């Protein structure tokens, strides 16, 4: 009988340890904590280009995350991306003229939505729309632009140098 | 006799004189024909032995009776039911009424002696622990191993293991026990003990016993009926007295233990001289 007890305790420890490990993976390792508090309100913004923005990317104000991207859909009337963001309910005092831009964390990092509060007295309501948006900066375009400018500018300098 | 049985446990279906009827049994293992038209009758309440030289498929016969193997032709009727025609459930119900004592004992090595004997009771009944304990101790007492209840099979001698297996075989009070080579490899004392147990259990519990063996001497002492199988056929049957005076060359060779006779000393081979010259 004692043996049976030892065995059952062993199995109890085993199952408890296994579940504890699963809970630890869920709570401590993954982003479960980040989207359990889904209560909040939604606002939308339209971008010409969202770059590498994904669902569940961060939405920040002054660098602090206040919400996450809930969905991204393509509007084939205006050829724009409509980004719906879920903002935590305690941050309900965003001015109506808040602007949104898609930025990159570091040079090669994740892309996120940065909100810049404006000066309006009225606040964005749930379901509200952000009018001022700035699309993602596409690195390839920038590099291309830079090279183009450089080539054009460099050519000018050469001409200048050749003139006298 | 009947009083020993528990009311709830399975008892025999009918009171046919014959508990096992085998007719025209044919069984082949691959290309090797083991039984070729065997008829055997096992009378109820008696000890019947099935003898034969090694390799005649005596163990196979027990498995055929237990429904573990399917014959190629013929029928095996146990207690009025054809073991190959009934459903799996019915076969399992039938098996609760018969036991097979394996040559090795086939005890569960991870269970103690007590738990081994308790196993069929735990599987097939919902008895309270105290009654179960009494029953198990009764069965162990019958084989004289009540004191060994806490040992593991690994701690038992071969003879003790067989007695524990016997206690387990009678746990459900079957109507029939089949013994597979019960005397093989045992010392004379153990052989005596097992013989006595077989006879005693058969008579006190009102069992039918089938013993498969080639130990002629022991069998003639305890059997009521004997069958002799050789070359896939029954070559003789009768009481031990009949068999001792049989005219059949097969039976005489076997009963007297002659090295050569109908069962040849030599395995079939090409001519000896030719064979030796072939290598040169």
């Amino acid at each position, binding site marked *: 009988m004692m043996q049976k007890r030892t*065995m059952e305790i062993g*199995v109890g420890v085993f199952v408890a340890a296994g579940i504890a*490990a699963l809970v630890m993976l869920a709570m401590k390792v993954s982003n479960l904590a980040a989207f359990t508090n889904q209560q909040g309100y939604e606002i939308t913004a339209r971008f010409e280009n969202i770059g590498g923005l994904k669902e569940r990317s961060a939405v920040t104000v002054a660098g602090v995350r206040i919400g996450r991207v809930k969905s991204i859909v393509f509007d084939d009337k205006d050829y724009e991306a409509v980004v719906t963001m879920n903002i935590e309910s305690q941050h309900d005092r965003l001015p109506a003229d808040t602007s949104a831009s898609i930025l990159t964390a570091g040079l090669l990092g994740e892309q996120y939505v940065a909100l810049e509060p404006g000066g309006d007295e009225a606040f964005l309501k749930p379901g509200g729309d952000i009018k001022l948006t700035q699309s993602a900066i596409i690195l390839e375009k920038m590099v291309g632009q830079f090279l183009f400018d450089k080539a054009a500018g460099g050519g000018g300098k050469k001409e200048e140098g050749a003139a006298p | 006799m009947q009083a020993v049985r528990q009311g709830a446990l399975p008892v025999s279906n009918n009171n046919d004189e014959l508990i096992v009827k085998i007719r025209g049994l044919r069984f082949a293992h691959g290309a090797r024909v083991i039984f070729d038209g065997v008829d055997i009758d096992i009378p109820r309440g008696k000890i019947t032995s099935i003898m034969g030289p090694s390799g005649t498929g005596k163990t196979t016969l027990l498995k055929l009776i237990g429904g573990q193997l399917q014959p190629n032709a013929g029928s095996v009727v146990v207690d009025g039911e054809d073991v190959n025609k009934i459903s799996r459930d019915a076969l399992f119900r039938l098996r*609760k009424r018969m036991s097979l004592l*394996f040559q090795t004992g*086939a005890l569960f090595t991870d269970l103690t002696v007590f738990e081994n004997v308790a*196993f069929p009771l735990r599987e097939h009944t919902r008895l309270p622990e105290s009654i179960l304990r009494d029953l198990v101790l009764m069965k162990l007492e019958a084989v004289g191993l009540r004191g060994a209840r806490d040992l593991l099979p690994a701690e038992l001698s071969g003879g003790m293991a067989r007695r524990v297996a016997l206690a387990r075989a009678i746990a459900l009070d079957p109507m029939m026990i089949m013994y597979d080579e019960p005397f093989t490899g045992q010392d004379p004392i153990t052989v005596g003990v097992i013989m006595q147990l077989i006879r005693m259990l058969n008579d006190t519990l009102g069992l039918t016993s089938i013993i498969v063996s080639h130990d002629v001497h022991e069998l003639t002492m305890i059997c009521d009926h004997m069958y002799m199988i050789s070359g896939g056929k029954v070559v003789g049957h009768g009481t031990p007295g009949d068999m001792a005076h049989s005219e059949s060359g097969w039976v005489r060779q076997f009963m007297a233990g002659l090295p050569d006779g109908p069962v040849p000393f030599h395995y079939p081979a090409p001519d000896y001289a030719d064979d030796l010259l072939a290598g040169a």
Partner: protein
Amino acid sequence: MMDWLQRLGSTSLSVFERLGRGNLFLLRVLAALPSLVPRPGLVIAQLYSVGVLSMMLIVISGLNVGMVLGLQGYNTLVDFGSEESLGQLVALSLVRELGPVVAALLFAGRAGSALTAEIGLMKATEQLSGMEMMAVDPLKRVVAPRFIAGIISMPLLAAMFSAVGVLGGFFVGVGLLGVDSGAFWSQMQSKVDLYDDILNGVIKSVVFGFVAAWIAVFEGYDAVPNTEGVSRATTRTVVHTAFAVLGLDFILTALMFGNE
């Protein structure tokens, strides 16, 4: 040439025959599972020998793998100045791949081989046959509890492996190499997704547990009932489980993470 073709043919036939037998066996085992419902004690006893006795091996291996990942990952990441991503690297490697796969391989070696040997020896010593003659179905009494215990144990063991591994990576990365503790956890949490990573990892380990337990009990039940047969079956369990787990891992990974 003809000999070679004949050998190929007979090998293929026997492989298909085994596969067929294995599948039929699986169906019979699945059909036997409901009989366990009134008898949880049988499963608990097997959880002990399959799960509890494998736990120490899994925990120690997980800790070691996590520590090595921490060390190697740090050495690579520090060249790019992104050693803060160490937590992410350790956690993703463990949760997505190493946890389920290595735990399944260890499981095959520790528990699978023991299951095969046990069932094979029970067959060789006629215990299974004896059970049948006692009107007890060995599939219900012996095979099914071991099979289900394998399936239950595997995800728990894989989770332990991953969790302990993350702690091992934390210990080396933060404790010894000086990665910032906050960055370690926050980078990990921001990149490890509950559904995409953790849940997929758990699904993998359930699938691996199913396959490992299936192979182990089948090899045992199908073993040639003698010493050599059982030893061959035990070897086959480990080898076949390893191949099956690695092959399935590729397929599952492609299905789960392929379209990112």
